[in-house]
């Protein structure tokens, strides 16, 4: 064992410098050329930074499209999910409350039309996206409060929908922050 101790310590020190020091430093340097300059991509609106493209934020006002429920209250410095099991009675009560609350805020929507992703919490608590269905279902509410024709809002959602990768892989998503910015810009 002794024979190997000194080489182990020296090799460890060198590798710590290479892998813990130079490797991330190099990447931080290259990242200066990338979108967001290695700090994450930010979104500006009316000359002000209003958030990160990929971090969900809270929209309490019914005049906006709302993101998926978050168990960490959209805390971007402490991500996390509920970790509740499928059959946990307390959890199912929470889901029922979300359904009831949604029905109160969206009286024009039938219960069977509520997509599951709007009454279940995301994994990170920061899911920035909705499915197109979860955005459409909010249209009657937003249309009524803003006096905008529903068709126009649907077009807005379609314009802000990103299809599957290369049209083939994965799901269609709608970025809630960008959709709400476009909504505010609608005059």
């Amino acid at each position, binding site marked *: 064992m002794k024979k190997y101790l000194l080489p182990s310590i020296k090799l460890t020190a060198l*590798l710590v410098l290479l892998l813990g020091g130079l490797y991330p430093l190099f990447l931080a340097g290259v990242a200066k050329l990338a979108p967001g300059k290695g700090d994450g991509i930010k979104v500006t609106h009316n000359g002000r930074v*209003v*958030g990160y493209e990929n971090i969900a*934020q809270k929209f309490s006002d019914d005049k906006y499209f709302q993101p998926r429920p978050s168990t960490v209250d959209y805390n971007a410095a402490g991500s996390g999910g509920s970790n509740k099991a499928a059959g946990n009675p307390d959890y199912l009560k929470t889901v029922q409350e979300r359904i009831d609350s949604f029905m109160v805020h969206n009286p024009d929507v039938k219960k069977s039309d509520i997509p599951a992703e709007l009454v279940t919490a995301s994994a990170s608590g920061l899911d920035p996206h909705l499915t197109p269905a979860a955005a459409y279902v909010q249209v009657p509410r937003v249309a009524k409060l803003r006096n905008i024709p529903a068709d126009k809002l649907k077009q807005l959602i379609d314009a802000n929908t990103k299809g599957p990768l290369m049209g083939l892989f*994965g799901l269609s998503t709608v970025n809630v922050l960008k959709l709400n910015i476009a909504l505010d810009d609608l005059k």
Partner: protein
Amino acid sequence: MTTEILGVIATYGITLLLAWPLSRYIVKVFRGERTWSDFMSPLERLFFKISGINPKEEMDWKQHMKALLTINLVWFVYAFFALFFQDKLPLNPDGNPGQSADLAFNTAISFVVNCNLQHYSGETGVTYFTQLFVLAFLQFVSAATGIAALIVVFKAMKEKTTTKLGNFWDIFLKTITRILLPISIVIALIFVFNGMPASYAGKEAIVSMQGDTVNVSHGPVAGFVAIKHLGTNGGGFFGANSAHPLENPNYVTWMTEMVAQVIIPIAMVFALGMFIQRRKFAMVIFGIMTIGMICLLIPSMQQEMAGNPAIAHMGIQQATGAMEGKEVRFGAAATGYWSTVTTIISTGSVCGWHDSTMPMTGLMQLLGMMLNCLYGGCGVGILNYYIYIIIAVFISGLMVGRTPEFMGHKLEAREVKIAAIITLLSPFLILAGTALSAWVLSHHPDADWAVKPSAWLNNPGYHGFSEMLYEYTSANANNGSGFEGLGDGNIFWNVSTGFVLILGRFLPIIGPVAIAGLMASKKYVPESAGTLRTDSITFGAMTFAVIVILTALSYFPALALGPIAEYFSL
């Protein structure tokens, strides 16, 4: 729906397409042939010179293991003290505190053994210094340790009679400089240009559209996430792991992370065939591993896409599947695929919480970790499979009444004893640990720990039992995923899983290396008509049967109490 499944198929297809050339390259590196990466050799020579290492000195299997254990011990001591004193070290822009002794013990062990159990949360529990200089460093070297041990076994299988099995330092360092580091850089660059952070800036306060002030954590994420997957480590930069939108921003990064985590395990199987020049032997192993994966994958994806029956009862449509603990940009099919892959290989990263998956999916996750050899972790997956092969050769030998032989060497009592001990070790650690925690929970619910046992479980009933079973299974398999609702940030879990981690890592490395080393030193027996052919499909099926029977016998009672009972009660 269709595009979701297409995405999964494409991802697996890309993995195979890239694994093939990678395996050829790996074989070249370890045979010492010329490759494009020879420009690294001056750096390697410099490292060896400073460290006082002669990379040409041949070692026997015992010397290999001594070197491996010594350097692992050095890493553990270094990591423990760095984590314990991290608040006094530089690169801590968020002012995070030092870890407690038991947490630092668990975290250090967990990253040294390639597990990454993470009883802390990335945003608050570590600093940039420890993320980079300790955790990311360990993610490289622990993966290289597993691969180096496997290469020793490759060499032992290839040679007729020898005790000289190459130089540990040489294999270990080349694994990093020729394989892990260059590929990690490529992966990290893909991440960076997809919006993953890579800078050293601390968390930033942003005023949201409706005027809330929100602190957003970021940091040097991209490089960390690259080696996290390539080295089958799985420890997340953020608490939400690869579900976090800055740790996995879009479908391109999802595919990249998915390919990255399974490419080396698959390439090592192909490399086995080329290295020992028995391609059919390796292809049969690859076939068995793939069949095993598909058996776990199909129920997982089906269950997740079908949705939660309890929510269906409420009258809610689940066109997108069971979305609790999942992200819209990945969806249920992709998250189901990830959950299978991350548990059969020992990554343990998640893009959706396993605690919230359906009971049958949870069963598949547990089985994946209990088998721990379907592709398996960097290097160690094949080592685990090797043990099953030894058992299968032994049983087949008994059945036909001949002294069992493998790769031209007699398999005798000593080797079989080692294989038997390694096989029994996993169920012992998992079941004894689960029993102990269940006992503490029911007999000492108010014990004065950071989290009282009565508050450990995040879910009642069968699923609560599964949370404890999952934690020890994950620790033993060096996987690192969890049913994360478990309140594991206290001395009981930190210490008990810490010991399971050590035993579950090093004995299953030493065992196969010892068997291979002992066999290689024996007299070579040329193959004859009476030799059991280990490269036949029949023998592959035999190995598969051994794996299934051993796993079922060991774990069925515990699984019946957990996910199976939960499934029937939902």
